[in-house]
């Protein structure tokens, strides 16, 4: 019997002892190892084995209480059930969460081979080699201060007192390499890259290395940019960062809480250029984690958020779907107040464009490679943003790194100012996305106006 079977038995026995009739449990058992190096030597190595479960208990008045715990032995689990039972007296009287009606429907099978963990010594060997290669890539690279390789195994489960039971295991590995350069008379610069894989053998370390080196070298010669309105090209990573930061546009819970730029009536309205279509697809073949169910046990599924600029669907939990007359979409994050979160975006061109654009031939564009400090510079409820970025001024394919600059605007205006969505998507941490071109975006640089 595996540890999740044991947990199920414990939960049933404890609930019976406490007289609890209705409950559900979502949790995970996680094992991970990570390493960092410093000029050829191990800097810090971390390993952990941890568990965590969230327990919801409904009382006779169908009010819900919740407790999270990392103690999943007999005593810990029973204490959590008991606390959740007590907390249920204070649970919401209206619009309280309930079991997902889809919690026992079949899930889409997801094929993700599990990678065996490799020894720490191998992780260190790979990282030391990557660091050395990066240091050798250019004499200006003085260090790789932010670096790491990690591997992880997650066993996730959901069960409820009506007999629903889900379970899945995933493995993943990641590498990141961020350099620091110093040239006399110039400001220090930094650039980097990261990659994800199912395991170490699947990890594109060479690709990460090459991208980090290429970006670093491209930022060595930099110049200030004149403040003004620019045609801007967002890298896939930058565009998805911004799209995710304004997630309240399509998050049903935010909309019901009136913490959104959208309202329930926004469905079917045009919120972006017809050149843009966006899906959220947990099951996308490129999604390493690919969860097959959400925190309420609802199967995940592809959801089209935008179709040619028109808002087609919100992301739902069971509760938001019920209130808005929709079906759960598999995006619930369990809690006393269930929240909603995206899984993996897939951005596509919408309508065919009147005109295509190319970095090699366009007269002048600002290429935004990486947006920074989103937690500070995004006013999600106002729709505005003002963010530092790494990028280049590109003139007919010739690029010059931009010294410290910010980009600012309103997300609604930006989405409607898209002039081109390139056809070829790239894989990023947040999803699959091509480069996106936007007209008339404010850039503030240090060269003045």
């Amino acid at each position, binding site marked *: 019997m595996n540890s999740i079977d044991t947990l199920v038995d414990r939960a049933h026995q404890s609930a019976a002892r406490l007289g609890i009739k209705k409950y559900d449990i979502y949790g995970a058992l996680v094992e991970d190892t990570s390493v960092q190096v*410093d000029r050829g*030597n*191990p*800097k*810090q*190595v*971390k*390993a*952990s*084995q*941890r568990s*965590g479960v969230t327990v919801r208990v409904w009382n006779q008045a169908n009010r819900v*209480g*919740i*407790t*999270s*715990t*990392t*103690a999943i032995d007999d005593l*810990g689990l029973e204490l959590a059930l008991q*606390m959740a039972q007590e*907390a249920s007296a*204070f649970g*919401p009287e*209206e619009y309280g969460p309930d079991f997902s009606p889809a919690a026992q429907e079949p899930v889409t099978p997801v094929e993700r081979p599990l990678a065996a963990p490799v020894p*720490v010594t191998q992780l260190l060997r790979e990282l030391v080699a990557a660091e050395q290669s990066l240091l050798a890539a250019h004499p200006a690279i*003085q*260090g790789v*201060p*932010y670096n790491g390789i990690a591997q992880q195994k997650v066993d996730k489960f959901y069960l409820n007192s009506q007999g629903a039971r889900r379970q899945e295991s995933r493995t993943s590995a990641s590498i990141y390499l*961020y350099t*620091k350069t110093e040239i006399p008379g110039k*400001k220090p*610069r*930094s650039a980097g890259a990261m990659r994800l894989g199912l395991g170490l053998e699947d990890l594109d370390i060479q690709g990460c290395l090459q991208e980090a080196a290429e970006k670093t070298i491209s930022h060595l010669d930099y110049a200030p940019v004149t*403040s003004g309105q620019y045609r801007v090209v967002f890298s896939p990573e930058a565009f998805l960062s911004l799209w995710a930061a304004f997630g309240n546009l399509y998050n049903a819970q935010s909309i019901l*809480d*009136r913490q959104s730029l959208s309202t329930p009536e926004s469905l079917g309205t045009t919120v972006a250029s017809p050149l843009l279509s966006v899906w959220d697809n947990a099951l996308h073949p490129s999604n390493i984690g690919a969860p097959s169910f959400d925190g309420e046990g609802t199967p995940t599924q592809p959801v089209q958020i935008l179709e040619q600029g028109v808002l087609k669907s919100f992301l739902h939990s069971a509760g938001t779907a019920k209130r808005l007359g929709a079906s759960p979409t598999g995006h619930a994050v369990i*809690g*006393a*107040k269930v929240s909603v979160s995206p899984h993996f975006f897939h951005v596509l061109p919408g309508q065919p464009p009147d005109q295509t654009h190319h970095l090699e031939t366009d007269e002048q564009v600002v290429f935004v490679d990486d947006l*920074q*400090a989103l937690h*500070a*510079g995004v*006013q999600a*409820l*106002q729709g*505005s943003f*003002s*963010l*530092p970025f790494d990028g280049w001024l590109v003139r007919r394919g010739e690029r010059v790194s931009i010294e*410290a600059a*910010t980009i*600012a*605007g309103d997300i609604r205006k930006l989405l409607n100012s898209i002039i081109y969505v390139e056809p070829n998507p790239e894989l990023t941490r947040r999803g699959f996305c091509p480069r996106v071109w936007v007209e008339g975006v*404010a850039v*503030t640089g*240090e060269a003045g*106006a």
Partner: protein
Amino acid sequence: MVLLIAAPAAPPQEAPQVHRLDYAWAPLLAHLLGLGRSAGADLVEFFLERDQYVSCLVEEDKVTSIAPSLSVGAGVRVFKGLADCYVSTNDLSAVGLRSALEKGLEILGLSLGSSLVPEVNLELLRDYAAAQGKDLWLDRCSPIGEMGDILRQANHELARQGSHVQARRCVYFRDWQEVLVAASDGTFARDIRLTQSAGCHLLCADGLHRASLGQRLGDTSNPEFLRAWDFTTTAADLAEAAGKMLYADYVESGAYPLVMANQFGGVIFHEACGHLLETTQIERQTTPFAGKKGEQIAHPSLTAWDEGRSLQAFGTIDMDDEGMPAQQTLLIENGILKNFLADRAGSLRTGHPRTGSGRRQSYAYAPASRMRNTYIAPGPYSLEDLFASVDRGIYCKKMGGGSVGPTGQFNFAVDEAYWIENGKVTKPLKGATLIGEATEIMNRISLCSQDLGLAAGFCGSVSGSIYVTVGQPHIKVDSITVGGR
């Protein structure tokens, strides 16, 4: 005073009950530390933690979330030479802790031998919790029902005092943490931390005009904190600010002189300078201040502290997460760099003395050098002096969050700003982001007023999210780049 404890006749086989972390753990931990040392580790450290957390959310006069959570766990750190490794686990049984230790040793190429194991002599337990009556704190806090009642009243105040209110939220959390630290250098210490925070958030909308503002207070040592919260004033301040910002114009980008308010205005120093004085940054070679101890790094008008001892401040700790008593650390005096913030590993690898700054979010993280209560000391000027010195500039009354990058460039958002014209505060402005280089900005803080104020904050970094205080008096910055429209 360090007392030696008698070695048990046989190695302890079972861990004490997890419901209390205290001297009862000494035999097991002393034995495990001895095992680690005999395997060849230079130093071994155990960190045991129990945590009870509860949060409460009230929206539109209704309690929409009560979320308790319980956690127990341990971390073991093993040092060999300049290298260290960290293993964490939820399993606090004797077998679980030993297995975590073995894994840590194995990572560093060490293994347990079969020879006789000398037990480590731990000091007599330094129990900050018992010494200060903290064991009774949790029972004196507001129970769940009272939390909801107080937050509902606060939420109602927002509705009463605000205009064009679209959404209103009030939140409270209580984080009770019991920690026990034992290390093979004899360190053996216990503490209880009780961190509480309450705050409100208001979203106002009128057509396309929107204003979204929040305010939060925090405390680390008053179980009665929630009952004592003056939510009427919090609601009034928030409603007034939101009313002004609702119709604010977007700021025009450019370089401006500015006056930055006290309290949370201190986030500029936290981000632009404080992080760069952590030994973690020296190790990574990501601070321009490495090697500059004793040198002028800031304007002569600037003196700054980081300390863990201010009564009830949000970053106050009696001991750090490595069992060292919190210190009061002078960072900069009249512009001259005096000290860095060092944890155990940072001290080992950089040579700077430990300052009681080894902090972490939980047992899942290895400690790192982190800030506690960090502030710029008050200066000789009046508030009027600061404003009078600005012809055309910006008053940053309320700062949002910010961050500092690996090369010292920082940025932070301004939630509430006003235009200054000929020394007078005039129209409200929104959408401003302040951008700069740490080394440059520290030399542009030219005037400090007398009104030092502290504010609660959260700081995320290598060892997770921790509670901190930022603070300063009103200050004048001669010039800074403002990103806007």
